[in-house]
């Protein structure tokens, strides 16, 4: 709850600075939606509830101009029937309130923008694959059938942007580490290496998260420029693995230090869009890769292409690879009995999107397939916009794999179907 107080104080001072009249007038512009969602597991997981989604939410989105800048407040009020405890944890996105955005942005200089507060941040070129986007993701929402916008979890950060004809720069400073909303076993069962088995509510992951304000901070940088339609970028990140990537001596999952350097490009190619991105993950607490308790460094690469196959039918394909560095050290340091990961994990994705009835009916299928892990993940979805305000959606999350310890293979007991209805205002 502490953070709510922080925001209230921030807003109060902003109001003081810019005048109360402006504050009162600013929030005439309220929009949002109410939504009910239900999801069921199609396979019987002994470690999880039968339902995968059972919630009603009201999103209120308030926008206003205040003095020289603008304020956005976007809050989700949530009744989640899957949870017994409804108390609010703003960082983890738990409880009856999920504050998606609460920020103030303005341009102190002609060539500079500032955005301060809770915000959703995204950059990079991948489609549901992230290399240089080190902002928090919500994997629980993603796998349990919430709307795709919930894949991105908010950051509490200061974003500074600088613009010039030569180059543009974004610097994002997050004073207290914002982790992913990662798989804990509470809603989605996962491979627990310590138990050597699939675990769920019987072995909810206990974590030790870096949480010192200013001490455990994150810095993300992007330099970018558009060369006549070719978008290029350089990235840097200093912080922590966003989801657990190691084990402490006490047996808790940890978020070791991480540094990432990367590049990307995106351009028009043969009537479609091509993109390529690479990143070098430097696992700072295990630079030689010989500590079995901490994830090794990696080199990640992505190439993708999207084009219109025929009218109203889009096809996008991606090739992605993760190369473990110091693989020899990794293998020789493993505890006996632990299955080694492959040196190179390769992943192919394909997304087909068909729209019909003037884009009111959209059918899509997104498939991830790894020939090295021999596992897959399928996301079929049908959405129907029945009127300007009424929206229906149904879909599924289907996992498959030969082994239970691979990235998608560990989720095979979590297949689910979901349905939602939403009314916007």
């Amino acid at each position, binding site marked *: 709850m502490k953070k709510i107080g922080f925001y209230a104080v921030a807003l109060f001072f902003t109001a003081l600075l810019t005048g109360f009249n402006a504050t009162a007038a600013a929030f005439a512009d309220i*929009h949002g939606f109410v939504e009910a969602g239900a999801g069921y597991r199609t396979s019987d997981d002994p470690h999880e509830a039968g339902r995968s989604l059972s919630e009603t939410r009201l999103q209120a989105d308030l926008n206003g101009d205040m003095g020289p800048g603008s304020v956005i407040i976007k809050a989700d009020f949530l009744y989640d029937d899957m949870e017994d405890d409804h108390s609010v944890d703003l960082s983890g996105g738990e409880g009856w309130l999920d504050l998606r955005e609460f920020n103030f942005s303005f341009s102190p200089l002609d060539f500079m923008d500032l955005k301060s507060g809770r915000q959703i941040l995204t950059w990079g070129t991948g489609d549901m694959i992230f290399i240089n986007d080190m902002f928090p993701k919500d994997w629980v929402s993603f796998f349990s059938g919430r709307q795709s916008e919930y894949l991105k979890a908010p950051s509490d950060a200061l974003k500074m942007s600088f613009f010039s004809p030569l180059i543009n720069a974004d610097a994002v400073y997050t004073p207290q580490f914002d982790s992913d909303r990662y798989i804990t076993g509470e809603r989605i069962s996962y491979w627990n290496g310590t138990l050597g088995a699939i675990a769920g509510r019987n072995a909810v992951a206990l974590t030790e998260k870096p949480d010192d304000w200013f001490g455990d901070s994150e810095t993300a940088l992007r330099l970018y420029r558009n060369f006549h339609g070719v978008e290029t970028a350089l990235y840097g990140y200093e912080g922590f693995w966003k989801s657990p990537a190691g084990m402490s001596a006490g047996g808790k999952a940890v978020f070791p230090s991480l540094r990432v350097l990367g590049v990307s490009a995106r351009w028009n190619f043969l009537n479609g*869009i091509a993109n390529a991105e690479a990143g070098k993950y430097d696992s700072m607490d295990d630079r030689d890769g010989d500590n079995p308790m901490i994830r090794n460094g990696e080199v990640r690469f992505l190439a993708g292409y999207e084009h219109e196959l025929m009218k109203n039918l889009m096809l996008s394909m991606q090739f992605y690879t993760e190369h473990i560095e110091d693989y020899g050290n990794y293998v020789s340091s493993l505890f006996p009995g632990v299955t080694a990961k492959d040196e190179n994990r390769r992943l192919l994705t394909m997304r087909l999107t068909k729209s019909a009835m003037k884009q009111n009916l959209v059918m899509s299928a997104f498939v991830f397939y790894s020939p090295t892990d021999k596992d897959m993940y399928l996301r079929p979805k049908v959405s129907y916009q029945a009127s300007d305000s009424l929206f229906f959606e149904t879909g599924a999350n289907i996992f498959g794999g030969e082994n239970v310890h691979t990235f998608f293979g560990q989720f095979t007991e979590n297949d689910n179907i979901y349905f939602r209805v939403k009314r916007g205002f």
Partner: protein
Amino acid sequence: MKIKKLLTSAALVCFAAQLSAGTGKLAVDEVVRKANNAAYYGGDDGRSAVRMTIKDKLGRVREREFTILRKDESDGGKQYFYVYFRKPSDVRKMVFIVWKNIDKGDDRWLYLPALDLVKRIAASDKRTSFAGSDYMYEDVSGRGLGEDSHELLEGTDTRYIINNRPKDADAVEFSSYKVWIDKQNFVPMKTEYLDKSGELYRTVEALSVENIDDIPTVVKARVTNHISGSVTSLEFKNIKYNIGLKKSVFTERYLRRPPREARK
């Protein structure tokens, strides 16, 4: 001096004669160029609030509201478009930017605010529906003049009539389209598209034209799809020209952070 003048005027006469000999070809290109400028290049830049009403044959209505900002590098040349959506709620705050290129495919981006995602869109689907309406993306930013061959037909007292055939017939859904152009101000008043079997299937009409800042401007328009029975009406409000938009408005900076010109 006199002789020189005489010679000059003789040369001018010869030149004029040459001109009129080639009138057929010159005239059609001239009309098409002027019509293109009248339809898409008013002023050096401009802004308009658009209200779009889509009515299907069963009478069901959908509404869209958005602001368009535009800036030209030169008349008939490269152009930048910025579209900020207000309604309905599911597309609210989305932004669409087009860099209309003359010598290559357009560059297009869509910004999804809920994900803070800058999505790049392929240029190939220009002839798909714009925001679920009977308008197409290409109607918003204009079709490249070089993509069709143009023929001047016999016009009326007030209209030039141009018939247009696509050079790459496989790239489009029509076989040809005819445009009625106002002889006074060169504003295209009506366009009829024939499908591959030669049947009329789509009509775009200017319903009301007003002089705004001395620029003839379509303030009401309508698109009819004769096959589906769907009709889209457009109303343009708060139109302003030459407001001094900076080129930077059409970049990623303002894609992620819509300027007040667009939000107001």
